[in-house]
């Protein structure tokens, strides 16, 4: 189970990503516990596996529209499916990587795996309680899900 400080780490990482990378802040809603049967994925999901000091996954799931605008805010004109997959993985990677500021270098993160609508669901570790951080940016909604033991 994540403690309050750990949740704060991911809240900070999420807001900082949009502030810096997109130069437009996002608002994050109150984190809540996800029920185990509710996955609630958007069209694109970037999944990072975590090992070492903690075990589990961190994933960022977002709709095509948000990712398209995010790419455009970075002056990227290629908004192809490949680049949408790329950016959703990069957001997840950046937020998870930034968490090492607080968790230390024994918080090992994988390269991103990307899931798209209709595909597999992220494999959550047994015994973990996923925390959902709702993200609102411009007119779009997304979620960061932190699922660590």
């Amino acid at each position: 189970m994540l403690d309050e400080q750990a949740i704060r780490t991911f809240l900070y990482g999420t807001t900082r990503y949009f502030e810096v990378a997109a130069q437009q802040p996002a608002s994050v809603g109150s984190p809540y516990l996800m029920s185990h049967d509710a996955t609630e994925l958007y069209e694109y999901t970037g999944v990072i596996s975590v090992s070492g000091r903690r075990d589990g996954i961190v994933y960022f799931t977002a709709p095509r529209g948000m990712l398209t605008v995010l790419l455009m805010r970075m002056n990227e004109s290629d908004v192809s499916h490949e680049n949408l997959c790329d950016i959703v993985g990069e957001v997840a990677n950046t937020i998870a990587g930034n968490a090492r500021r607080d968790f230390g270098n024994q918080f090992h993160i994988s390269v991103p795996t990307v899931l798209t609508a209709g595909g597999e669901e992220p494999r959550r570790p047994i015994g973990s309680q996923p925390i959902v951080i709702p993200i609102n940016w411009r007119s779009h909604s997304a979620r960061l899900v932190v699922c660590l033991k």
Partner: protein
Amino acid sequence: MSSFAAEVPCLMPPLRLLIVDDSNVMRRRIERSQRLAQLQVVGTARDGREAIERFIETDPDVVTMDITMPNMNGIECVEELVRMKPGVLILIVSALADKATAVEAMEKGANGFLNKPFTDRQLNEALQELLGGA
């Protein structure tokens, strides 16, 4: 008017830049955003192994290097590139934000560290600082 040295005419031949990142979006962003007249992008690579191949082909003077990549990570790649060309300037561009990783990268031979996410200005300032020693 920009404060970057990009606006200043440069009489020296440009330094050759290799961009290494497993994200296509990040490779393109660094290529598009770097505005230093002293730098000319000569290649890109998406992991450490490909970086070594591109390094041999293009003989760069400067490298931007991600850390978390498939096949060979950035820290291992830095060690190999420095062994091949001790004078190469390497800027780590990574999401890994802990001090121990930055220290390890420097110990392996990197010359600078820029955390993701970054603004265009931060990228150019980091590259400018890196070239300050060139």
